[in-house]
């Protein structure tokens, strides 16, 4: 793309700093976007990609740094300011109003009017139809958004973004819910827009996509910009190395453990639209990684196993015995612990004290009579506060006032207190600072040493490579690979995660 190199930047960001409580999300980041280019943004979770584009979209404000739009210095203080500057954003999860029609959603807040105040309904539908047809999106403008598939909703969100006739479009992982045809459709539209001179910022975890459509690529890691490269002259392995960056052996204090007999086995676990014929096992003392891209179905599958969602076919075996009825309370009684992906939503009672959170899964086990002994409760809480170095002034402290990493240790200690023999940990280090991450890896090691069977779901490749004895890789609802400790390399895990075409075809949905 020689001409794109010469064209002037539409957006130039310089020295951008953004702080969140306890963590610097962006640290002196420079970024620019030229006319008619697709600029790809990659990095691990928490690298700062979303923060960067949210600043451009006016959702977050920046602490330091400058933004120039077409040469003029601007402050993007709110989303409507971004809109007036010609910046539109399509989020990973479409945020449309489910009970409005497609046309109403597309023109929400910029409806065509008649007499200056009344919505011109006929015109709205006609314009929506024209727009959808010009994009070859096969959706009825009068349909309620709630009735559309996630992929179609995403395309409608895309159409809405284009209805503002933007000069800059930001796509934040737009293809995670799209089918292959829908993805192709979106890509051809993006290429057309590019030719019209629109600048596109594209975030994706599907690295192979980037080579299909990207012109330049910027790699972020831990809030810092690592490099901006011309994508045509860059190898996938280079990009992965830049994303990962750290010295893996230091970060992951993996120790050899005594691996015992099988503790958890899944046979043919299936649920339509979620996963298909999942077979896997975890042995005592073993840490098994379950890797995949966002939306591969890992979390959803393990939620079936724990009994949070109903399973359609397949069975779960615990220590060789088939579990007849899956429910969360049944699973807890059988000694399964589940650390959910979103600790605030499902992991903690934020308004309650540390000690109440620690014993929550063990109430019936610790207090058979039904009466709680405060003495015993305090002893248990103190024990785990000490063992996991939970940074809290007292066991009575409300969990809401603790830092993210400390909160995560409280969730973990809930399952230590319950003496779970099988632990399912879903993204155990998401949104946690590096120091606490290492502590959590140590705890996982210790648990494995004590004979627990541990399954870790993670989207961070170095993490999963660093802590697992064995790795299963999922892609689009099926297991696409099982890798033993020796065979694990970034390249072959990534290859399984992106899914070979044959494997995806074999999956019947």
């Amino acid at each position, binding site marked *: 793309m020689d001409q794109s190199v010469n064209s002037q930047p539409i957006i130039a960001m310089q020295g951008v700093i953004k702080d969140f409580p306890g963590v610097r999300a962006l640290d002196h980041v420079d970024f620019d976007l030229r006319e008619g280019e697709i600029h790809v943004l990659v990095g691990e979770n928490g690298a700062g990609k979303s923060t960067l584009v949210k600043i451009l979209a006016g959702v977050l404000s920046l602490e330091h740094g400058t933004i120039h739009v077409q040469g003029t210095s601007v402050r993007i203080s709110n989303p409507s300011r971004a809109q007036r500057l010609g910046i539109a954003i399509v989020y990973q999860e479409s945020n449309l109003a489910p009970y409005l029609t497609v046309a109403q959603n597309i023109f929400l807040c910029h409806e065509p009017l008649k007499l200056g105040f009344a919505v011109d309904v006929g015109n709205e539908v006609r314009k929506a139809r024209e727009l959808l047809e010009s994009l070859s999106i096969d959706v009825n403008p009068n349909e309620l958004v709630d009735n559309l598939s996630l992929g179609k909703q995403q395309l409608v969100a895309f159409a809405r973004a284009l209805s503002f006739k933007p000069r800059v479009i930001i796509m934040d992982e737009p293809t995670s819910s799209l089918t292959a045809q829908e993805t192709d459709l979106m890509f051809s539209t993006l290429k057309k827009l590019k030719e019209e001179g629109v600048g596109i910022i594209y975030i994706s975890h599907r690295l192979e996509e980037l080579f299909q459509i990207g012109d330049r690529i910027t790699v972020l890691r831990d809030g810092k910009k690592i490099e901006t490269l011309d994508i045509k002259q860059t190898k996938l392995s280079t990009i992965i190395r830049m994303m990962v960056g750290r010295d893996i052996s230091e970060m992951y204090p993996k120790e050899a453990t005594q691996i015992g007999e099988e503790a958890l086995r899944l046979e043919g676990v299936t649920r339509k639209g979620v996963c298909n014929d999942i077979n896997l096992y975890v042995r005592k003392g073993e840490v098994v990684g379950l890797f995949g891209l966002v939306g591969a179905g890992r979390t959803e599958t393990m939620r079936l196993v724990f009994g949070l969602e109903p399973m359609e076919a397949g069975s779960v075996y615990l220590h060789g015995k088939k579990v007849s009825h899956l429910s*969360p309370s049944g699973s*807890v009684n059988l000694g399964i612990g589940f650390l*959910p992906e979103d600790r605030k939503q499902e*992991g903690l009672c934020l308004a309650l004290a540390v000690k*109440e959170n620690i014993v929550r*899964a063990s109430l*019936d086990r610790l207090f058979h009579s039904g*009466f709680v002994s405060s003495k015993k409760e305090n002893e248990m809480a103190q024990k785990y506060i000490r063992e996991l170095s939970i*940074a809290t002034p007292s066991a009575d402290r409300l969990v809401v006032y603790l830092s993210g990493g400390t909160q995560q240790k409280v969730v973990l200690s809930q399952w230590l207190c319950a003496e779970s023999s099988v632990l399912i940990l879903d993204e155990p280090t998401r949104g946690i*600072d590096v120091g606490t991450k290492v502590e959590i890896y140590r705890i996982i090691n210790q648990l494995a040493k004590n004979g627990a069977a541990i399954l870790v779901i993670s989207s961070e490749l170095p993490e999963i490579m660093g802590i697992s004895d064995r790795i299963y890789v999922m892609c689009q609802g099926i297991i696409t690979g099982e890798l033993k400790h020796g065979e694990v390399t970034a390249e072959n895990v990534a290859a399984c995660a992106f899914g070979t075409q044959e494997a995806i075809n074999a999956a019947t949905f």
Partner: protein
Amino acid sequence: MEISNVRKPARSGLTLVRLLTAISRLAVLAIMVALMAVLSPTFFTTSNLLNILRQAAPIFIIAAGQTVVILARGIDLSMDAVASLTGVVMATLMVDNAIPFYVAMPLGLALGALLGLINGLIITKIKLPPFVATFGTWLLFRGLTVLWIDGRVISGFEEGFRFFGSRRLFDIPVIIFIAMLVYLIFRILLKQTTFGRKIYAIGANPAASRVSGINIDRIMIIAFIISALMATFGSQLYISRINSAKSDFGEGFALNAIAATLIGGTSFEGGVGTIEGTVIGALIIILLQNAMNLLGISPYWQGLATGLVIIIAVLGDTFLKKIAKKYES
């Protein structure tokens, strides 16, 4: 553990805010009492104070049930109708069928438990929101009451039954002792049983409680049975006191119980609150009425005053919470 230490907050200021939150209601109650002691010569007499306690007792007894439900993020609007239906059924059993009170009262409670079970099942199995479910059963149970009693007024109960609501022990109304007993039971239930812990956990975060293996449906059903039982028991005490039962009896029970719970500091979002707060809430409601009566203010103003107190109490909580948060971060 050097890396992720929590920041040390300004402890003294925070402690003050915490203390204020904890004692704010007691302070309001104390100020009201002090004010009334100055304004009205008849207020600070034994008979008036006992009168306040006697009137607050049944409100508290019913509100104790509502507190359990609201702590678990529910609400029970059907308490009025549960009270009237179980009340008139028990009354007809005693008066028309000459069944002794020690049989009729447990039968009434059993009917109450059944009505609570119906609420609980509609909420957990059909998955209607508690507001909608208990609004529906409120109308339903009220309809059944009218059908059952057909406009009659039932009165003339035996002496043994009248003992609970209208007799005195050591010159103190029996109902005050009953309320104290109910307080003790609910304090133990909420603070010292696994059931109580689960109620708080569900109210604070139902999704996390589910992941922790708490059987939410079972706990919620029990909570609604408790609230129906307390509505039933409260209605029995009322009937015992006024010595009559008719179909519109029990009106306002649910709203008074919700008012006492909220004034007492239980969060409508669940997970936060105490039974002590509800005691104070019930006292504040009755004190307000008593004060207006003594000061010769029209009873028409009473609803308005109670409403204002609820809004101010909840606002005050929100305000104190905000300050506490500021200190923490």
